[in-house]
C-alpha cells in the first residue's frame, strides 16, 4: 500500500475540479427523480387503466427499458436525441433526458406496486362519495400510494445517484469525472478513484441511514 500519495489533495483542487462534477451529479439525480416520478406515475396509471390500447405501449416501454443496460440507453439517447431535434445538445443535457426516460420505467414499477397496495375499499369509498376517476386518483389513491412507497422511491434515488456515474460513457462532467480529471492533472488517478469511492460510500451510507429513519417515522400501523 506504500506507493499511494494523497499529498496533492487540497481544498483548491477539490473546488476547481470536483465541485462542478458534484453539482451536476446532484442536479442529474434531482431532476431525474422528479421527472422519473412524474412520468413513472403516468406510466403506472396507463398500465393499470385496463384499456389495452393504453396499457400495452406503456408495458412495452417499461419492459424494454428494463431489459437493456443503462449504459446502452445512455448511448442510444446520446445518438438519437440530436437526430430527432436536429442539432447536438451536449452530453449533460443528453444525460438528463436519458435518465428521466430511463428512471420513469423503474419508478413506474414502484408506483404501480404502491397503487396496488391500496385496499380496494378506498376506491369504493371514493366512488361512493361520487368522485370521478381523476378525483379518486388525485385525492385518494395516489397520495397514499406515494406515502407508502416513499422509502422505496428514496432507495431508488440512492441507486440512481450511484448510476449517474455511468454518464462516463458519454464523457459528461459528473462527480466521478471530476475526480478523474483532478487525478489526471496531478498524475494520481489511482488515488483520485480511491477518494471518489470513499465519497460515494459516505454519501450513500448516510442517505440510506436517513431513509431508514424516515421509514420508521412514517410507517402506518394498519
Amino acid at each position: 500500500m506504500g506507493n499511494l500519495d494523497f499529498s496533492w489533495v487540497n481544498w483548491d483542487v477539490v473546488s476547481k475540479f470536483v465541485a462542478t462534477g458534484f453539482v451536476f451529479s446532484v442536479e442529474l439525480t434531482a431532476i431525474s427523480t422528479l421527472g422519473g416520478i412524474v412520468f413513472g406515475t403516468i406510466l403506472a396509471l396507463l398500465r393499470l387503466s385496463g384499456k389495452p390500447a393504453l396499457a400495452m405501449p406503456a408495458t412495452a416501454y417499461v419492459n424494454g427499458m428494463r431489459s437493456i443496460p443503462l449504459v446502452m440507453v445512455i448511448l442510444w439517447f446520446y445518438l438519437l436525441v440530436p437526430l430527432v431535434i436536429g442539432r447536438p445538445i451536449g452530453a449533460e443535457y443528453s444525460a438528463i433526458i436519458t435518465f428521466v426516460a430511463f428512471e420513469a420505467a423503474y419508478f413506474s414499477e414502484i408506483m404501480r406496486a404502491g397503487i396496488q397496495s391500496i385496499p380496494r375499499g378506498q376506491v369504493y369509498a371514493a366512488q361512493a362519495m361520487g368522485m370521478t376517476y381523476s378525483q379518486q386518483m388525485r385525492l385518494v389513491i395516489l397520495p397514499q400510494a406515494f406515502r407508502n412507497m416513499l422509502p422505496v422511491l428514496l432507495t431508488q434515488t440512492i441507486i440512481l445517484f450511484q448510476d449517474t456515474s455511468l454518464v462516463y460513457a458519454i464523457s459528461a462532467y459528473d462527480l466521478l469525472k471530476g475526480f478523474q480529471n483532478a487525478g489526471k492533472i496531478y498524475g494520481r488517478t489511482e488515488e483520485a478513484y480511491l477518494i471518489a469511492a470513499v465519497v460515494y460510500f459516505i454519501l450513500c451510507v448516510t442517505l440510506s441511514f436517513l431513509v431508514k429513519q424516515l421509514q420508521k417515522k412514517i410507517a402506518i400501523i394498519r
Partner: protein
Amino acid sequence: MSWDWQVFCKNTSDGAVEAACWAKGADITYFEWMIHAWGWTLAVAACAWVIAMVVGFSVGVARTLPASPVLTRLANAWVELFRNIPILVQLFLWYFVVPKAFPFFQHVPGFLLVIFALGFFTSARIAEQVRAGIQALSRGQRYAGMAVGFTTAQTYRYVLLPMAFRIIIPPLTSESMNLLKNSSVAFAVSIAELTWFAMQAQEETSRGIEIYIGVTVMYALSAFAVNRVFAFIEKRMRIPGFIVAGTGAGGH
C-alpha cells in the same frame, strides 16, 4: 432516414461487403465481431455470476448465523461496502487501484479484475436476498433442525438453505439479469464486450443506429435467456404441497 443493414456484413479491414456476412481468411465482418463481443459479455457475466453466488451465499448465511456476532458484523460490513459504491467506481478500484497498491495484482489479467469487480458488487445484493430468504422462514424450521440433532452446518445444509433458495429464486433471477446488464460497464476498461464493440463499430462505420439495434437485441436476448433458465429451475425445484412465491398466493 435510410437503413443500411449490410453494415453487419462489411469487412472490418476494408469495409467491403462480404457474402453470407462471413469473411474469409484472417479478416472478420462486423457481424462476426459482434458475436465475439457477445461471447465476452457472456463470459464476463458467467464467471462473475459464479463468484457472486458463492460469495453472496456465504456472506448471506454469515449474516444469519446464531451466536457469531463478529462474523455477522463482518458480513454486514461487506454488504454495506459493496452496495454503496457505484459499480463503475468499483471497477476502477479493481482495475487501477488494487494493482497499484498490491503489486501481486499486476500479473492478474484485466479480464479477471473485471470479474472480481462485478462478482463482488453483485455478491452484496445476493447476500441481502439470502439473508432475507433465511429470515423469512419461521423459527420452527431452525428448531426442527436442532430437534433432530443437526449441527448448525447441517441445519443450514438440509433445512434452511433448500427452503430459502426456493423462496429467493425470483429476486435471484432479477439479480442475475442485472449482472448481465451491469457487465456493460466493462467497456470502460476496454474489455471487448458488446457495449465496447458498439462504441467502436459506431465510430468506424457511422451506422450507430443499426449497430446499437444489433447490440440491444443481443442484450435483450441474453437477458431473456437468463430469465427462462431461472423459470425452468424454479419449476423443477418446486416441491408439491408448498406454494412458492410468484404464484400470486404469497409465501408458503
